[in-house]
């Protein structure tokens, strides 16, 4: 780690002022930032510790039916909050499918949104990476890229956004509250992360000093609680990032889909909302034919960025499977292996 000044502001206003200077970085739990600093990928000269800021660690049910999640709520606390998990079961499942128990106990909501890509070339200081050093080139393009993006990528960058949590959040129209030098503003989570275009060094539409203070889920997201799943394919059973993931939610009215929500993870530099597929599902009768059509539509614009053409077919199958599982109903309890397509019944061997 390169040396830095450590600052612990007492208020949000002090934090924003301290972090607006070049070279500053916010520190919450540090589960991502410290890893990046140890690898020499992030070299902040000033670390602004926001972990003690008051009032940002609450989960609040608002009178209009929405829920407001403070940016410093820990992933495990949100996933295990009974009222939250009941209302937004696929969000809880996504949280529990990510990282390890130790990391979930520390990692925060705001930090999860702003975690950096796990592209191995981004993490290897000896490799060319436009996200890390603008203009340097992209070694992932001709390298090991079977896990890279198939949607929204550019010649400059083919990295994916690694968050599980963000996938159902974006499907449910989550809103991000941001405190910045110009005061408080809010934007849709779908508009927070950027596609790489020619400037992959900018992961999000945030300005220096901008601080995420909360994430809100609107009341309408509650309509899907009975039929909401997150499904995540990993290269090992647990504690791995998604090859492809899908958040699927249905609001069913008898034999008809009133409304559907669908988003994908592991396929692009941002959590990928599949609105055209949602429109196709609205009014359809739930079943594999409709789910397969939706899956094809969701991946309609996908192209391989390297040796990852398989991810397009895989993502389509994941979408159809996630929709089928959502139609079957939200399980009473998050499965033993959250979000796993290989999840077995309680007590069975995970390798069986």
């Amino acid at each position, binding site marked *: 780690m390169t040396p830095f000044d450590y600052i*612990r502001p007492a208020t949000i206003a002090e934090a924003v002022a301290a972090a607006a200077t070049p070279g500053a970085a916010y520190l919450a739990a540090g589960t991502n930032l*410290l890893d990046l600093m140890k690898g020499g990928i992030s070299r902040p000269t000033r670390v602004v510790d926001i972990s003690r800021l008051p009032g940002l660690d609450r989960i609040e049910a608002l009178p209009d039916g929405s829920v407001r999640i403070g940016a410093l709520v820990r992933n*495990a606390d949100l996933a295990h909050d009974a009222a939250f998990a009941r209302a937004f079961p696929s969000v809880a499942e996504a949280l529990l499918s990510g990282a390890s128990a130790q*990391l979930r*106990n*520390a990692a925060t909501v705001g930090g999860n949104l702003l975690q950096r890509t796990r592209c191995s070339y981004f993490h290897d200081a000896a490799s060319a990476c436009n996200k890390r050093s603008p203009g340097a080139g992209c070694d992932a393009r001709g390298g090991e890229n079977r896990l890279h993006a198939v949607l929204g990528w550019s010649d400059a960058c083919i990295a994916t956004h690694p968050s599980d949590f963000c996938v159902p959040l974006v499907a449910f129209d989550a809103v991000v509250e941001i405190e910045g030098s110009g005061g408080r503003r809010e934007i849709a989570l779908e508009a927070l992360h950027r596609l790489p275009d020619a400037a992959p060094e900018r992961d999000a539409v945030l300005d220096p000093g901008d601080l995420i203070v909360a994430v809100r889920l609107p009341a309408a997201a509650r309509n899907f609680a009975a039929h909401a799943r997150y499904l995540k394919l990993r290269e090992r059973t647990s504690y791995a990032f998604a090859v492809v993931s899908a958040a699927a939610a249905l609001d069913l009215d008898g034999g008809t889909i009133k409304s559907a929500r669908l988003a994908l993870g592991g396929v692009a530099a941002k959590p990928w909302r599949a609105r055209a597929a949602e429109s196709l599902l609205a009014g359809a009768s739930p079943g594999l034919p409709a789910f397969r059509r939706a899956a094809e539509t969701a991946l309609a614009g996908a192209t391989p960025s390297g040796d990852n053409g398989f991810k397009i077919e895989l993502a389509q199958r994941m979408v159809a499977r996630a929709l089928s599982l959502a139609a079957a109903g939200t399980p009473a309890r998050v499965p033993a292996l*959250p979000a796993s397509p290989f999840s077995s019944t309680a007590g*069975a*061997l995970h390798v069986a």
Partner: protein
Amino acid sequence: MNLSISLTVNGERRDVALDDPRVTLLDLLRERLHLTGTKKGCDRGQCGACTVLVDGRRINSCLTLAASLDGAAVLTIEGVAHGDTLHPVQAAFIAHDGFQCGFCTPGQIMSAIGLIAEGQAGDDPERIREAMSGNLCRCGAYAGITEAVLDAQHTLAAAEKGRAA
């Protein structure tokens, strides 16, 4: 820069002057407080060897800045036994061969203590395995570890029941 922090480590108050904010909780424990039971494996949050409890919750001490923990209570492997009486999780790891070389064991045991306190896994071995997936064991003692966690959980639940009765 000089940062002074105060921690409760294994029940004992420790005041530490940090000459550098880069010190992680793991390095503080090992290098400054000479509590070397907590191990440095990957130092990047991937192996779990550095697991300790902070305010009762298991975390990776390698990914935590010590400066950010001012006022926290830390429990390490050195603080779990009562004198010569092993903690039930320690005893269960021995009874079930939950280790071979032992390097990952302090982290495994602290993780297991945290897991049992979380109370989410119940008697389901698959939930135990999933909840222990942040702790790698290169010797492959996973089967014994799962049995040890299940056994220790029963022992602790029985002790709790005994106290309540």
